[in-house]
């Protein structure tokens, strides 16, 4: 899957996250989280897993998290990717 345009998913509510993806020359993930200290690596791992599953190799992925659980992270990233890939 190729990130063709800017797209976002999610909300700013507690236990949720917002994901903004946009085209970029290389793959970059930026994470802002209320639980960044404890869980940044775990969040990154979840995002990378979704990106790998969709074969995404380039793009800027910005995540603003308020303590979302794994499945919420995966669902929001996947939704943002699908919106970014639509024509």
């Amino acid at each position, binding site marked *: 899957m190729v990130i063709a345009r*800017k797209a976002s998913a999610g*909300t*700013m*509510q507690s236990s949720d996250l917002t994901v903004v993806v946009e085209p970029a020359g290389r793959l970059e993930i930026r994470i*802002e989280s209320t639980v960044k200290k404890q869980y940044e690596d775990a969040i990154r791992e979840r995002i990378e897993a979704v990106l790998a599953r969709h074969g995404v190799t380039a793009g800027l992925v910005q995540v603003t998290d308020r303590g979302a659980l794994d499945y919420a992270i995966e669902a929001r990233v996947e939704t943002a990717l699908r919106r970014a890939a639509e024509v």
Partner: protein
Amino acid sequence: MTAAASRLATAGEVADARRLVTSQGLLFEEGCDDVVGIYEGGRLAATAARAGCVLKMFAVEPDHQGGAVLGALATELVRLGRAAGEESFFVFTRPEHAQSFEAIHFRLLATHSRAALLEFGGGLEAYLDRHAALRRPGRHGASVVNGNPFTLGHQHLVETASRRVDTFYLFVVREDRSVFPFAARFRLAAEATRHLPNVVLLDTSRYAVSAATFPRYFLKRLDEVAVAQMQLDVRLFAAHLAPFFGIGTRFVGTEPFDATTAAYNGAMREVLPQYGVALVEIERLKGDEGPISATRVRTALARRDFDALRRMVPEPTLAYLRSAEGTALAEKLAAAAGGK
């Protein structure tokens, strides 16, 4: 679970929003790009609006405050704003509400007793990153100018100030709300300072004298709101821009005419030293008929008085004023003056 916020479009919905905003002692401003709200049981429980990159008029019914309502409003405004091409968003609010916005990942840019300015979307970091190549070792100075248009007075300020520092950063106001468009203001500033090797030009983006930090500047209305805004504008400069570029001194021209600018200079005099930045006021250059100002240049341009203009502006500005673009602006200015 709080209901999601949605865009209020009908006249009835907007009337509800106006009622809620007004009931909380806030001013309902016309001309916003989006007004959003949350209805619960047929009653508007919360509302907020977006004008460009600025989120405003957050009003929540007392029995809904403290919950997830703020996140719902901000989510929808940011979603709509991003769809309209905005990347970063500002909120100008009371200091006691700053924490609620910080909880949903807004970053506090500046605060003082009356107001706080927050941003969502990492715009300031991106702006500083973009200009990282302009950082240099040494003791530096800076000015922020609108240059509407660039005069001999501006040139005198930059010449005098740049001699006193290692690098002089000349910030040109990015906001396009002045008579002269940004591209022209920036180019004329560059051409008039080209002979000064230690002068570095950059635009302020939204981080000084902008619709986000100091909207009243463009209205030229000196009231309580304007005073709060200039406090935030100066604190943002002192806390974020100055340390990033190593700016130890901000230079301004003395202000004999304009009350808003004079008050802004006063705010700098009070606030900058608190952040370890000195303010140096340089006596304004005097022409044959008193101090030179961009206001006087615009008045002369409206009359097409090129004799007067030649004595007030550097060569590049004069050439621009004589160009087709300059002539069109002169006609606009003359029409505006005639209409008064």
